[in-house]
């Protein structure tokens, strides 16, 4: 076991037992007691003791260390999704802090183990990260630090171009392996059980139109590569860009790590909400004695604080879980509840269903942030938590409260959560203009990309692809293809008649 002091170890055993008794189910969890310097190091490595060498970690280290030394920020808990789970306690923290962190960590560990979005992650990532470090070090020895580091810089700027849903879809994995031959017979024909219905269900002009559409699609698929838009840009580059084997390996390393961290981004609100819900419940009901309540309240309110512009996943998460538990305990769900228009009756609604605990465990297993917010964010909740949407006002040069309208809040929140609030970008054509140029299409959702970042990222793409790079996107409300030929950028206004050549690629989730 780890290096806990006897007092902490005794407390750990007690808390583990309590957590287990309320139904939390976790991997074995190892707590390490570390100094603040070690904690800063581990934090800048994203929770791992070893990562591949890269200056970015040094930059994070500087920021984290300064933040701590100047007393601006303090890392409370650090836990990694691994079997066994590793979590860190900082030496010199107060006893109440350590207990709180332990209770919180068991919440996270339960979430890691049971939430389905984590089901595909590598549970031996600690070892894998160490292997990545060895591989990168070997490349540095062989190809030089500058070389390897520059290439890592380039790939890191494309790190977010992965398909976060791919690990959960079997068909997608198979699709990349072998494509089924195109079905040529009777495209679009609907099945008919009674012969006399044939001409009504499948009228000849409909069949003709379908056949035409299909042949267009087919010719597109046969003449284009990739045949379907590819969301996992990193994988595409790894397989098809003109790269050295070590460069392909670097991409595979960064891609694997990106996929490993992706579920943590997809369940930020839920994960933190779940852990906070349990630390608060366990601490107040079972772990603490009376003398510690003030200190606990102080720490707890510190983590739950929310400033007007910030969005605190701990706060929204814990409140949503509590709200759901209460609603399901009182039976405030289902048809009857939804159709009830009597406010007074709704207020006193209590069917004594007592399903709350069961429901939140079900939610922690099956949902991610998008589905969680989509299903359980209610108007009452937004009003109670005084939520609003803010927008930048060009005239005043300030961020301003835009609206407190519930559908708008929900829409904005879902937008922020979908794809981590990052633009969705597909590889559409690897032989654009028949010149071996790369064409990426940004699926426009109403918000434009930041142009300077986009151009810098395109320069990096060019370094990987080796041929001119094009990005179809929207700039100042007009559709453009931004072209970069290695030296200059050119914005070509998107011609409308060419639209058919460029499927925007439908989003499959």
């Amino acid at each position, binding site marked *: 076991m780890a290096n806990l002091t006897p007092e902490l170890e005794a407390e750990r055993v007690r808390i583990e037992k309590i957590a287990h008794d309320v139904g939390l189910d976790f991997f074995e969890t190892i707590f390490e007691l570390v100094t603040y310097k070690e904690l800063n*190091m581990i934090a*800048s490595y994203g929770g791992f003791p*070893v*990562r591949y*060498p890269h*200056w*970015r*970690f*040094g*930059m994070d*280290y*500087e920021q984290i260390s*300064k933040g701590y030394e100047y007393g601006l920020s303090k890392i409370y808990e650090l836990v990694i999704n691994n079997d066994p789970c590793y979590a860190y306690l900082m030496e010199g923290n107060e006893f109440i802090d350590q207990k709180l962190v332990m209770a919180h960590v068991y919440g996270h560990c339960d979430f890691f183990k049971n939430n389905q979005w984590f089901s595909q992650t590598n549970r031996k990532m600690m070892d894998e990260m160490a292997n990545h*470090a060895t591989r990168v070090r070997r490349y540095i020895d062989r190809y030089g630090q500058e070389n390897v*580091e520059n290439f890592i810089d380039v790939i890191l*700027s494309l790190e*977010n*171009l992965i398909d976060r849903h791919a690990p959960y879809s079997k068909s997608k994995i198979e699709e990349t392996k072998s494509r089924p031959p195109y079905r040529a017979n009777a495209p679009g024909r609907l099945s008919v059980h009674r012969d006399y219905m044939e001409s009504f269900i499948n009228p000849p002009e409909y069949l003709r139109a379908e056949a035409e559409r299909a042949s267009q699609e087919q010719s597109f698929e046969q003449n284009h590569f990739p045949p379907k838009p590819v969301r996992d840009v990193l994988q595409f580059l790894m397989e098809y860009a003109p790269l050295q084997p070590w460069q392909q390996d670097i991409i595979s390393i960064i891609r694997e790590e990106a996929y490993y961290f992706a579920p943590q981004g997809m369940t930020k609100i839920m994960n933190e909400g779940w852990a906070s819900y349990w630390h608060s419940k366990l601490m107040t009901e079972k772990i603490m004695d009376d003398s510690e309540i003030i200190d606990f309240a102080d720490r707890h309110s510190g983590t739950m604080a*929310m*400033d*007007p*512009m*910030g*969005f605190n996943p701990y*706060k929204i998460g814990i409140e949503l879980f509590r709200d759901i538990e209460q609603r399901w305990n009182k039976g405030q769900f289902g048809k009857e509840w939804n159709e009830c228009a009597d406010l007074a009756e709704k207020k006193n609604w209590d069917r004594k269903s007592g399903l709350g605990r069961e429901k939140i465990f079900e939610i922690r297993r099956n949902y991610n942030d998008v589905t969680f917010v989509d299903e359980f964010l209610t108007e009452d909740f937004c009003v109670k*938590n*005084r*939520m*609003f*949407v*803010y*927008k*930048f006002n060009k005239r*005043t040069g*300030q*961020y*301003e*409260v*835009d*609206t*407190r309208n519930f559908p708008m*809040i929900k829409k*904005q*929140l879902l937008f*922020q959560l979908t794809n981590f*609030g*990052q*633009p969705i970008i597909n590889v559409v054509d690897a032989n654009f203009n028949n010149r071996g140029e790369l064409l990426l299409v940004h699926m426009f959702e109403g*918000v*434009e*990309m*930041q*142009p*300077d*970042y*986009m*151009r*810098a*990222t395109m*320069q990096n793409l060019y370094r990987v692809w080796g041929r001119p790079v094009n990005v179809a996107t929207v700039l100042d409300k007009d559709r453009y293809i931004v072209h970069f030929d290695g030296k200059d950028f050119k914005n070509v206004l998107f011609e409308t008649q060419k639209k058919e050549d460029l499927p925007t690629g439908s989003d499959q989730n």
Partner: protein
Amino acid sequence: MGILEDHRRFKDIIRGRIKQDFKKYVTHGEMIGKRENDYVKIPVPQIETPRFKYGKKQSGGVGQGEGQPGDSVDGEKQPGQGEAGDSPGQHVLEVDVTLDELADILGEQLELPKIEPRGNKNVETLQNRYTGRGPVGPDSLRNFKESYKEALKRQLAAGTYNPDDPIVIPIRRDIRYRTPKTSVKPQANAVVIYMMDVSGSMGDEQKEIVRLESFWINTWLKKNYKGLETRFIIHDAAAKEVDEKTFFSTSESGGTLISSAYKLCKKIIEEEYPVNDWNIYPFHFSDGDNWSGEDTRLCVKMLTEFFLPKVNQFGYGQVESKYGSGQFLKDLEKSFSSDERLVISRIENKDRILNSIKDFLGKGR
């Protein structure tokens, strides 16, 4: 530890980037404004990893709290971010750089020689600090922590310590006291005295140049001397000593008598900085206009008789302005064409600052 390697690598990269754009940093005042004690915040381009991402201003977000639609949300305004740039690679990150590192970079870029301090090289003062530990002393200096440690040690050795009932009682011979330790502390032994003409002909642009020059001169001298004092004198027809803030923000409209500043400077040196112990660096910035030839002759006389024999180096920087005649510089050149101790530099515009710094500091005096 791998992280130290990564951290060093990060520092190296920052240094490299700063060196690349060094001239830009020298001529841009914005980073001096962000000076905090020993650090400067420097905006370094191309450090943050670029990504395809949404423009923040367009996307907005969800917040929580009071306020009606239209009320401004109190939050960081993100100064300096400005409008999205349209040239590639505009992404910028602010990093902290110590003045020491900055001086190193300045030295390397300008190939500045190390300064050979003159006179009494290391003026040091002895200082007593109560950092020691001893068995005797007055009760007011009792060191509780150490005393209890001693008591614990004694009890452990004697076997009277019980971990289940950890009571430690110090006795007379466990008590420890704080005792004085003498440490050698370097004393400030260099002084820079800045003089500036604040008459009407010196505009904001000229003052900005002086501000930048003085920042870099200070940075370099601080690196070379253990302690550095700075004094500021402004003058038009009369001179007075001011603090740094006033120095750069005052505008007068009177005539110009350079000798007034030199007289005040002489007085300060004579009264407070004995030349044997101090390395003295007076710098004078003006647009080169003086009231009369008579006054200029007086200045030349003071330079030859008082300043040049006593100071390490006297710097005169002439900031070109539309109104100044620039006559003073010509007069000085005529009188001291070959004297190394007087450095004359002409600063036509901001781009010349770097060369001028090299003029001033390149002698290694």
